[in-house]
């Protein structure tokens, strides 16, 4: 295991007009771990994802990927390096079938270089590779599901499709913006093994989540944000026990019952 963190976020600050969305947030991400980012609404979780992946320009701060600075690079270049993301408000190509949704990212330079997920370094026929990736993430191969229009798929499948789109690039890091939200209990239950499998395949995952129970089951470490500032960082157990975190989320001490569910 590498000594250097795969991602280093240093003193990131972002203001939108008069609003301070992120205030000198710093943290490191170790290669191969699952880092959860939690926090009450408005704490800046999605903003930090946008800043890391280049969709939003930071007001100040630096970000390093494998030691190289990626601050201020355009979004597509950052994705090209292997730092990919999903969208909280999902953005599939609705008018296309599911597998065609994957054909598009397979046109990217990175896909060409790496051959996509399980490509083994060379890109084959895009349609076939697309179907392969869909199978990986749980679309039954012999069914009609991969061929359905994205607009006809339920949320659970669409969330997986978002992940698949990242996999098409053979990513090193996937920033998952609320992949568990909008899913039913059973859908989440089937999502968790997928996440674990991705980790076993060597991908580093950073997961923004509201669903604490499920997140705490998979995450190695958790970062807590509040009002744009890093409140706490540690293992799930440490986070659950931390007084500041409880106060930030619930504002009171009657928190024991909720937290013990995990």
């Amino acid at each position: 295991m590498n000594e250097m963190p795969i991602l280093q976020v240093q003193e990131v600050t972002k203001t939108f007009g008069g609003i301070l969305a992120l205030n000198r947030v710093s943290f490191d991400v170790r290669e191969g771990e699952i880092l959860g980012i939690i926090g009450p609404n408005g704490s800046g979780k999605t903003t930090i994802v946008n800043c890391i992946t280049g969709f939003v320009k930071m007001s100040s701060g630096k970000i390093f990927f494998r030691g190289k600075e990626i601050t201020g690079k355009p979004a597509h270049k950052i994705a090209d390096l292997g730092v990919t993301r999903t969208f909280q408000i999902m953005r599939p190509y609705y008018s296309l079938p599911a597998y065609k949704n994957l054909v598009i990212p397979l046109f990217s330079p990175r896909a060409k270089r790496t051959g996509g997920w399980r490509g083994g370094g060379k890109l084959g026929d895009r349609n076939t590779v697309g179907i392969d990736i869909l199978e990986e993430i749980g679309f039954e191969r012999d069914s009609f599901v991969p061929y359905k229009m994205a607009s006809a798929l339920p949320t659970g499948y669409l969330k997986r499709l978002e992940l698949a789109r990242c996999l098409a690039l053979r990513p090193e890091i996937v920033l998952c913006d609320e992949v568990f939200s909008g899913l039913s209990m059973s859908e989440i239950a089937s999502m968790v093994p997928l996440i674990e499998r991705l980790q076993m395949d060597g991908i580093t995952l950073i997961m923004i989540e509201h669903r604490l129970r499920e997140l705490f089951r998979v995450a190695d470490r958790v970062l807590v944000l509040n009002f744009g500032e890093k409140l706490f960082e540690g293992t799930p157990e440490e986070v659950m026990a931390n007084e500041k975190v409880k106060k930030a989320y619930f504002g009171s001490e009657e928190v024991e019952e909720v937290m013990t569910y995990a």
Partner: protein
Amino acid sequence: MEILIYGTVNSIALALMALGFALVYGISRVPNFAHGAIYVVAGFITWSLINTLGIGYALSALIAILITGVIGALIYRSMLIRVRGMAISEIIASYAIGLAILEGLRWGGFKGMTYTLPLFIPGSVSLGGVPIDIHRLLLVGIGGGVIALLWLFTHYTRIGLAFRGMAQDERAALMLGIDSDFMALLATAFGSMIAGLAAIVLLPLGNIVVEAGYNVLILAIAVCIVGGLGSWMGAVLAAFLIGFAQILTVVYLGSHYQMVVALLAIIFTLIMRPSGLFGRQKELEERV
């Protein structure tokens, strides 16, 4: 000194031309490509009122401005409201309206050099040793007045504040009970009236020609882009920047290059800082 004076005059003129466009775009997010056409129409209406109906200058001007406002509102109500939100259709529709008006005017007999509006007050004075038309001085005064009035209006009246609210966030404004369609209608009407005012103030300096419609459109857009689409004060500042740049070019290079300056300004802005000087659309590259 000469440069300073004429530069200021030119800048205020540009600001007048651009404010109408900036107003409409800032509030309704519809780029009104018919802006130039409205400008020219106002000039022709004034001319017709003065010469065909024999109404006095001041009164003609007033009526023309009002009519122009109504025309703007009509354009919005009948056409633009249907295509609002569909970016491609908005652009094509307003462009088509502008073209129809301008080319229709060109054919309808309004061609050539024979149409002019008289100066407000003929004659010139000497300002710091530089001769300048009184009309141009009035221009600066009126222009400055309009800018000041606009600022006051948008900061202190209900409708003005509603305008600003809509310009910042339409959904939020809707939630506060501001009728966005009606506001957009008013904005188009106001924008047209400002364009009309600009026409009446600026046209006496030259002839009323249809070409002016296109020129005004280009200049207005240039100013708005440099200032930042959606920022009125940015437009004023940009007007000064471009205005002085143009005068400098005229002095040192020759008067043909004015349009080139406008074009270069746009390209430069888009390369360097696409959201313009004060663009509210800073989220231009940043939307998620």
